[in-house]
């Protein structure tokens, strides 16, 4: 990812476009959106006018000209940082848009196929796509299966399978079918499709300042006004000193020097980079294949301190696996395994398949074809809560093998006038307490034993939760399992809390309760019944494959439909806020050095008496060559630090999942202390360079 990012940052085309855009962004109506940089622009204009007046009066000052040039550069660099952040997304958006305009859709109307422009499609239309076709708009596969190249939006070149029914039915406009044929029902109106939203987002057309950005802008504007006060009162103080040192009033500070001081003091670094940080935060989410509906959502992600996670797919692998057979009294384990395998031969569920495999691996019992054995497969239904086979044995009798939940099998056996033994009950209880799902197997009126179906906790997930805990985030596992099973899995996975036998409305209630206690809740979901909870949560991530209702209720969409993505989203949010804080701290800490550069420079003549330099040159601790080069060095440093920090603003500060205290000490050391020291070194170096 890093190499890819670097490539994008330094792409020539983007750089060129960004350079052009930074000039375009000089438009006052655009500039005024950033008060700090607007002040710099006013300063640049004033200084330029003074230079021109000077030329007009044959009193040209190259010092003033240099100040003017570097002030303009400060503005341009700030514009550039924003332009390049936008440019990275724009390049992506541009190709998407081109694709979309050219894309034709093969609309099915009646029994005919009509070729229309993708932009003319309406919600509910049905289109067909075959190998090589671009999917014209967002929709749902209603027939067929195809492999789709989604690299246009996800950047991932490996094709994905999209098929009708189930979890993988949603397709996105702009992606390409690379094999087979599918029928798609369009589910989104034009202008609101995924790509439309993405284009709008990355282009910043809909970009609004987030609450935190607004607060930060207020702080920066406030600081700017305070420094403005410090600078406008300076000529008065200085004039008093001139008078007291017996110097003529005409030696008072010139406007370009005052403007230079002001620009150095106001927080231009963070002011210039603020929007780039915000845009690139959005960009980083897109790189992780998550689309947020607003910048506000990313910020909220950093604040989330409770995560609701579905057990299946997030904490455990989607499927339960058979890991053991426990025979009942008087039954051999082979007998049980054989019956279990037999009953599962036609069971296409992952659990069923795992039983067949386990029996084969453990007891070398081969798979058989069910129909060859005069057997009929009885599939699982919600009513019976069992599955199995009915077969006719050699003596012509019909036998029923069933496997299912303990309750269902008890009823089944008792209905056949059988007896449900205590030992089976014990095994079931024991397995359940370990977090496993016991599957009881019976033949006719006799209970054969229990299959141990185990939830497999994903590798590394426990460590992930431990990291989250360090960051102060509590994880809550949601499961439909009973409390006993849930508790065991929760313990194995290391989640902080769990909700057993959870219904969708319980999820919603849980979110409300957590929020009432001051928590911010994040969750990820896909189903229609997840929609209310997704809407209520502070961060609701809908899976791309999920239902349309879920996609609309959440404030983010995960293209990969990967439930663990929630954790990454939280990290992106935190990194965004950290970057903002780090650069603000850096920017403010910079001021100390700038004072030490400029104040001795302007006060050099005060109370000098017979000496060449006045007493305040003692403050020139950087030993800068001359007053003019000192001021110039400070202004140049102030300008180029913006451009030097652009990569950091785009990539974000280095992020590690550690506690708040550790993160703070680390960032404070780098950006606080660094911000204090760096300008002393930088200004000195520039001073040496311009005096070569």
């Amino acid at each position, binding site marked *: 990812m890093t190499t890819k990012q670097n490539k994008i940052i330094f792409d020539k085309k983007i750089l060129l476009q960004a350079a052009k855009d930074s000039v375009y962004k000089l438009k006052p109506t655009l500039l005024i959106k950033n008060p700090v940089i607007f002040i710099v622009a006013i300063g640049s204009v004033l200084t330029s006018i003074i230079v021109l007046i000077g030329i007009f009066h044959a009193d040209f000052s190259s010092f003033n000209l240099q100040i003017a040039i570097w002030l303009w550069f400060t503005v341009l660099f700030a514009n550039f940082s924003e332009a390049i952040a936008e440019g990275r997304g724009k390049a992506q958006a541009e190709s998407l848009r081109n694709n979309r305009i050219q894309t034709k859709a093969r609309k099915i109307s009646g029994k005919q196929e009509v070729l229309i422009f993708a932009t003319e499609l309406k919600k509910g239309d049905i289109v067909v796509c075959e190998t090589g076709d671009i999917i014209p708009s967002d929709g749902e596969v209603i027939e067929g299966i195809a492999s789709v190249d989604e690299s246009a939006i996800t950047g991932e070149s490996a094709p994905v399978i999209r098929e009708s029914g189930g979890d993988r039915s949603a397709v996105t406009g702009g992606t390409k079918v690379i094999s087979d044929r599918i029928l798609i029902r369009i589910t989104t109106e034009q202008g609101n499709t995924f790509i439309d939203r993405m284009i709008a987002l990355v282009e910043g057309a809909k970009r609004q300042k987030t*609450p*935190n950005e607004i*607060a*930060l802008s*207020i*702080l920066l504007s*406030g*600081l700017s006004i*305070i420094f403005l*006060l*410090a600078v406008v*009162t300076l000529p*008065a*103080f*200085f004039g*008093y*000193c001139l008078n*007291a*040192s017996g110097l003529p009033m005409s030696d008072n500070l010139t406007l370009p020097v005052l403007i230079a001081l002001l620009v150095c003091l106001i927080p231009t670094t963070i002011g210039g980079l603020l929007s780039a940080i915000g845009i690139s935060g959005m960009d980083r989410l897109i790189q992780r294949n998550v689309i947020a509906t607003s910048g506000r959502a990313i*910020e909220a992600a*950093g*604040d989330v*301190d409770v995560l609701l996670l579905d057990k299946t797919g997030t904490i455990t692998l989607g499927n339960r696996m058979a890991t053991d057979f426990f025979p009942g009294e008087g039954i051999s384990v082979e007998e049980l395994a054989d019956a279990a395998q037999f009953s599962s031969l036609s069971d296409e569920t992952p659990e069923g398949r795992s039983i067949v495999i386990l029996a084969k691996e453990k007891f070398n019992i081969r798979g058989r074809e069910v129909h060859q054995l005069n057997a009929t497969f009885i599939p699982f239904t919600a009513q019976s809560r069992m599955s199995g086979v009915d077969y006719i044995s050699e003596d012509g009798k019909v036998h029923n093998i069933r496997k299912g939940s303990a309750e269902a099998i008890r009823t089944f056996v008792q209905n056949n006038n059988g007896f449900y033994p205590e030992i089976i009950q014990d095994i079931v209880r024991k397995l359940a307490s370990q977090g496993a799902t016991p599957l009881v197997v019976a033949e006719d009126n006799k209970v054969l034993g229990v299959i141990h179906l185990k939830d497999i906790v994903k590798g590394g997930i426990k460590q992930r939760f431990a990291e989250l805990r360090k*960051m*102060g*985030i*509590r994880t809550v596992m949601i499961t439909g399992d009973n409390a006993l099973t849930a508790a065991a899995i929760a313990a194995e996975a290391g989640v902080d809390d769990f909700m057993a036998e959870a219904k969708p409305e319980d999820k919603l209630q849980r979110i409300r309760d957590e929020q*009432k206690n*001051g*928590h911010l809740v994040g969750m990820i979901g896909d189903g229609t019944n997840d929609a209310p909870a997704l809407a209520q949560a502070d961060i609701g991530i809908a899976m791309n494959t999920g239902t349309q209702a879920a996609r609309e209720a959440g404030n983010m969409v995960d293209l990969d439909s990967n439930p663990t993505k929630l954790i990454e989203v939280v990290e992106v*949010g*935190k*990194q965004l*806020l*950290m970057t*903002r*804080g780090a650069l603000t*701290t850096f920017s*403010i*800490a910079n*001021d*100390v050095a700038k*004072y030490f550069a400029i*104040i001795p420079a302007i*006060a050099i003549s*005060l*109370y000098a*008496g017979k000496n060449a330099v006045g007493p*305040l040159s*003692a*403050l020139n601790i950087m030993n800068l060559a001359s007053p003019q080069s000192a001021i110039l060095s400070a202004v140049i440093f102030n300008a180029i630090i913006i451009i030097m920090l652009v990569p950091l603003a785009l990539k974000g500060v280095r992020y590690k999942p550690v506690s*708040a*205290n550790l*993160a*703070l*000490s680390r*960032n*404070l050391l780098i*950006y*606080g202390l660094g911000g204090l020291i760096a300008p002393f070194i930088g200004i000195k170096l520039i001073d040496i360079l311009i005096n070569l």
Partner: protein
Amino acid sequence: MKTIDIFQIILFIILLIGLTPLLGSYMNKVFTGNKHFMLKIFGWLERLTYKFIKVNPDEETNWKKYAVNLLIFNLIGIVFLFLLQTFQSYLPLNPQHLADITWHSAFNTAVSFVTNTNWQGYAGETTMSYFIQLIGLTVQNFVSAVTGIAVILAVIRGISRKTTDKIGNFWTDLTRSTLYVLLPLSILFSVVLVGQGVVQNFKSYETVQTLQGTQQVLPMGPAASQIAIKQIGTNGGGFFNANSAHPYENPTPFSNFLQIFAIFLIPSALTYTYGKMLGSVRQGWTIFTVMFILFITGLGISLYAEYSANPVFGHIPMMEGKEARFGVSGSVLFSVVTTDASCGAVNAMHDSFTPLAGMVCMINMMLGEIIFGGVGAGLYGMVIFIILTVFIAGLMVGRTPEYMGKKIGAFEVQMAILANLVTSFAILIFTAWAAVSSYGLSSLNNAGPHGFSEILYAFTSAAGNNGSAFAGLNANTLFYNLSLGFVMLIGRFGVIIPVLAIAGSLAKKNITPLSSGTFRTDNWLFICLLIGVILIVGGLTYFPALSFGPVIEHLLMNSGIIF
């Protein structure tokens, strides 16, 4: 420094740390309405007060109503005090037949005492009758101090409550802190002061024959009762012109020590009360530590500057402007404490200090009077810096900044920066105005950077509601009376209103529970951060102004030039 000097400072520190939790937990009981022993003594008076002003003590208001009550109360104080002075000659207890006071001086003094500044453009013994000192000034010494306490109580409630708009009842806060905190302490302290020789009578001034055979007028009056609250309430308005340098106001080294300590007593104890009321004593001690570090640093620099060899006069104790009975340490400690705590009482002429010691006084005030600060005011000023610190640095932990579980949003930042802006505006703009105008400059008694320092000090003192003077500046002129009066008003209410707004906004928010992802505000890291923000955001603005005043003067002094 002699052993006795060091002993004095160490004793001061031990008492400060020791008494902070004692008085702090007592005040916690008072402010939270719990049982305490003073109820038996003054409980009836509290109930009577509510009956008299027709207030239901349990009925709380939102921040706007709280602010309006506070403003009305203070406005009445200003008008009342203004009228008292302008009609002084018609009022009783005026044995010296002192005349009515000019309107602009009366305005300045009225504002000054109501805002807890106690800047004095007048000389007490030749201007104010006993009646005004007692009914006007002493009363305001009490109520201006409790106004500060009321504001910080509102802030504490704003932080500790959730999803409510009620931040307390101004009248209840006012009554309780007067009756149970200030009144008992003042009575106790004035008795001790009388024991040390501070005058307390209603006699007319006495004329005595000095040893040189000349006549001298000895001023009299009810001084002890006013001086006690002057120190305890961080007011600082002296009964006599010489303030605590006057032998009838501060007769002995012991009374001097007690007066210094009395300044810090309540502001320091309030940090403990703050922690206690917020349910985390650590938070209180954190703030105490920040204040203490800034205090000790300033004291160290001042002592160093005053005890260093003077390049012009050599290595002798520079006693100009200091009282022989207090010595260098007793004067320096007083000066640092009084400027830290927005008190403004003085026992030496700050004007005569070395430039660096004078600069310490100015920086103490410029930082916003938050080093223990005025009663209540220091702590709410500190809360503003805490909000700024939390916002700037809190982002670095990757969460929307929060303090005590309250998210700090745009509104809080806006109000905090506004409070900061108001003081910078008052100090810088008015100093600049005075430095270029003839009516500003004509009041100066000294030339060069020292003259500049005098102007800068005056406006800094007024904006920080400190009230101490650098002296050397004749401030009883139309320009200074009005401009300083205005600066005192905005320095006081320009901060109080945003602070109450913050309290109101925080009260409405929910509280995010503590976790390891929370930005801690009760550890050493935060202490360092807060100090950094106070110095950079609060102090850096004044770097140029200070450079042209005390810094240049110090550098020039080292090359043998003094002013």
